[in-house]
């Protein structure tokens, strides 16, 4: 064949960049699309670090297997287990690779990579670069991809927006053969052909209005695949991070590393105590996480810390100054040490709040942070097949399997991280594959890079041996591409036409519709959920979708029209919001981040299942099914994190003994 085989990667965060590098190395021509210059992708925000078993932890009794076991337990047994095992096995190699790329990981006195403690683990297994680890990893991958770009192996389309996948008829069902995208400067809409398309478009925090995410994390790209037929799994699993700083435009994260480095969460014991924090003596402070969870203390997983903070503030009204805030205190640490280990977040707090957290405790409250759910993806299981699922792993004892590559997933399998649409893949935060019902801190960066490196090879194999080998995208009739472009052009025209004349009521203002969506989703579908409230959220979303369909644009420009791009995304975000709330309503149990006051317990018999949502184009609504979780490797157990519950010790004991 004369034509070089092509792959499109949508998204240049860690997942997209790692995938681009790997696939370019495999000889594919890579076209890389991103809303922003890839070096400005949201991954740049990640602060705390990236997990991997390492030699120090290993000699203390840790292992790749324990990392795997922790991740499954942390995710409350909702994740399919094979991919998680493979990811944990790869983790140390990924750190080595990043190290070779020149990531300035913090070092010990002897020059080895330094480690810190992170949530959900009792071992130091988090590698870091100050408190801007994501930035440093993103830059390292960005540099490698720039090198490939200079060599002509990667072509970048930055400031381009993905509008829809292009589907053609495949052997069994639709097959993805390209995308429609728009240049956000000239507003040109164009089709691009490719033998496979990898979505690496990140999370959907903006659906909640304010979150810790970047403003480009709208979830619109996910929504466009979902509305084109890709299944959306576990949409209800949204991580609310316990420690964010509320702001007028966003919630700024104070990384879990603040607690990993010794930060303590507390409120005054006396309700309404108005003394400045530093004047409240030790004995009059309530370190509620340490009291309830003596084993993990402040580093319990996020969902647990979030609910405890929420309970203290909202139910017990014990928040600092009577408001929705608690202290996150690092003032007992040496300021110089804090600058060295946590400088990035110390600066953010000081810059945006105007107070130096080295000397005054920070005031924080939970904020929407991460989407565990995402596009549903497949994989081929690896060679590890225990005769029965294993009980909890005990540190320091022999592991149930070794860390050989291929134990969890079959390397190079073409279906690894392929969605239900042939040729359409999902890497990174936009898929649902690794984190179950709750993600452990510092596992996201790992899963993103792992997807790119590991599953990138499967994409190359699919293109070489699968449908594209006999019917390359180049052979698909032009009409398929023209009609996709036509559809997007009409969708755009319908929106821009509304900019002519008309009133400017809040009712039909896309910015106001987006704001109301965010407020509704935050109120009805975050920390605490309940049947009637979720129904109200669904009703509100339906109302907002109706208003959106009558929306009036404030700018009819044909050059660099950001309002158009935003307004179009709002419609797609409403489809995501509907899937999230529908998934939450259908899951009548509590698991990980999903907490239902009307169903407070985990119900494995009915709900140890993946929420599998497809888009009903006729109704314009989510259709929810539940599918079995593949849990052949580790047996489910109660997830207590050694909680000491003064009121209900008996119940916790019983739960711990087995569900």
């Amino acid at each position, binding site marked *: 064949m004369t034509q070089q085989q092509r792959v499109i990667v949508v998204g240049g965060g860690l997942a997209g960049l*790692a995938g681009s*590098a790997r696939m370019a190395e495999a000889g594919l021509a890579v076209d890389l699309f991103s809303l922003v210059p890839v070096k400005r992708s949201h991954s740049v925000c990640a602060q705390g670090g990236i997990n991997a078993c390492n030699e120090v932890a290993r000699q203390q009794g840790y292992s790749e297997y324990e990392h795997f076991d922790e991740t499954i337990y942390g995710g409350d047994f909702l994740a399919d287990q094979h991919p998680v095992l493979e990811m944990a096995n790869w983790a140390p190699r990924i750190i*080595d690779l990043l190290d070779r*790329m020149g990531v300035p*990981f913090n070092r010990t006195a002897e020059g080895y990579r330094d480690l810190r403690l992170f949530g959900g683990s009792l071992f130091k297994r988090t590698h870091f670069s100050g408190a801007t680890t994501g930035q440093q990893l993103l*830059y390292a991958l960005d540099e490698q991809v*720039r090198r490939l770009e200079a060599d002509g192996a990667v072509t970048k389309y930055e400031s381009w927006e993905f509008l829809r996948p292009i589907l053609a008829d495949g052997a069994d069902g639709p097959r993805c053969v390209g995308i429609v995208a728009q240049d956000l400067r000239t507003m040109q809409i164009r089709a691009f052909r490719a033998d496979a398309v990898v979505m690496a478009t990140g999370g959907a925090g903006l659906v909640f209005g304010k979150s810790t995410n970047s403003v480009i994390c709208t979830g619109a790209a996910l929504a466009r695949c979902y509305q084109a037929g890709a299944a959306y799994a576990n949409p209800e699993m949204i991580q609310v991070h316990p420690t964010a700083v509320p702001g007028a*435009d966003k919630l700024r994260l104070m990384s879990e590393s603040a607690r990993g480095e010794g930060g303590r969460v507390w409120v005054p014991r006396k309700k309404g105590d108005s003394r400045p924090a530093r004047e409240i003596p030790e004995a009059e402070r309530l370190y509620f996480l340490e009291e309830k969870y003596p084993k993990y203390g402040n580093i319990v997983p996020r969902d647990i810390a979030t609910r405890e903070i929420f309970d203290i503030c909202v139910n017990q009204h014990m928040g600092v100054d009577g408001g929705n805030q608690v202290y996150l205190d690092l003032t007992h640490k040496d300021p110089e040490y804090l600058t060295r280990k946590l400088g990035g977040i110390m600066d953010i707090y000081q810059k945006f709040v105007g107070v130096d957290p080295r000397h005054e405790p920070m005031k924080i409250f939970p904020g929407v942070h991460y989407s565990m759910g995402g596009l549903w993806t497949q994989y081929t299981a690896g060679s590890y097949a225990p005769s029965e699922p294993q009980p909890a792993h005990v540190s320091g004892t022999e592991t149930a399997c070794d860390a050989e590559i291929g134990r969890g997933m079959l390397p190079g399998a073409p279906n690894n991280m392929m969605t239900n649409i042939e040729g359409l893949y999902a890497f990174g935060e936009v898929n649902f594959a690794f984190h179950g019902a709750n993600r452990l801190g510092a596992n996201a960066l790992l899963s993103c890079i792992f997807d790119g490196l590991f599953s990138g090879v499967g994409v190359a194999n699919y293109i070489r041996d699968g449908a594209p080998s006999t019917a390359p995208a180049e052979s698909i009739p032009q009409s398929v591409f023209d009609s996709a472009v036509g559809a997007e052009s009409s969708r755009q025209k319908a929106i821009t036409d509304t900019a002519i004349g008309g009133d400017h009521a809040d009712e039909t203002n896309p910015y106001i519709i987006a704001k109301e969506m965010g407020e509704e989703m935050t109120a009805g579908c975050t920390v605490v959920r309940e049947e009637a409230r979720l129904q109200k959220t669904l009703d509100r979303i339906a109302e907002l979708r109706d208003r959106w369909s009558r929306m009036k644009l404030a*700018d009819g420009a044909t050059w660099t029209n*950001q309002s158009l791009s935003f307004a179009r995304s709002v419609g797609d975000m409403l489809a995501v919001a509907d899937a999230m709330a529908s998934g939450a309503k259908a899951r009548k149990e509590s698991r990980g981040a999903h907490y239902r006051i009307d169903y407070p317990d985990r119900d494995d018999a009915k709900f140890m299942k993946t929420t599998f949502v497809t888009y009903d184009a006729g109704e314009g609504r989510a259709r929810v099914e539940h599918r079995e979780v593949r849990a052949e490797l580790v047996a489910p157990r109660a997830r207590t994190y050694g909680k000491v519950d003064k009121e209900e010790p008996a119940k916790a004991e019983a739960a711990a003994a087995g569900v």
Partner: protein
Amino acid sequence: MTVATTNGTAKRTAAANSRKVRFRIKRCDGPNKLVRWETFELTIAKGENVISCLQKIAANPVTTEGKRSTPVVWDCSCLEEVCGSCTMVINGQARQSCSALIDVIAPDDGDTVTLEPMSKFPVIRDLWVDRSRMFDALKRVKAWVPIDGTYDLGAGPRERPEEQAVRYALSECMTCGCCLEACPQFELAEDESEWDKSFIGAQALSQARLFNLHETGAQLKGDRLETLMGPDGVSECGNAQNCVKVCPKHIPLTESIAAVGRSTTIHAISKWFSGK
């Protein structure tokens, strides 16, 4: 406390610290289009920044004269001063708009905030400029470590904490362009073909130093120095030191410039001796 606000003219309770601030914004509909100024007045609550104000203007773009305009176009992403997107000239100085707190830059009732696009890069529309040249400069100085591919080949070189600290500080550069906006030697070049004809600027010089400091990265040191000995290279720096004063990441740019300057001199001498 604010009640759920719906737009820039939202109703407020307990207006103790609420006040009005004017935003004078330099607007332009696109390349070769006329520049115009528009003024918007907003009610400001405690803790707002330039971004939250631009968001309010987008929701209700009505000028102080009561004229309905369009939402202002600008670039932003992280909103926590780490991605570099939202750089613009605020009250005469290039900086990030996400970390420009209104309480600090316009503390009093009736204050005015002036927003302009950076002047050293071509304007796309309003406050959004095209900084492709900065990314191109990274290519020109080969700002990467030339690894043997993404295979599993073990760890990278060991490094002392002091060396890590130097590299980390340089590696925090977010390609924002403040150093270039402030530099008297760095000029606007609209056309791609002009990019290598005038001073490359402190950002790329500092990145060249970063990769020269890495054991594997140093393999390309010769190439980098060759590039920086050209007509757009380090000799163009007039040592005005504006760059280091405005860098939001406090990158030691003048140290980098001096280090690269020394290296190019040594490189030139050794070339001269070896007759290459």
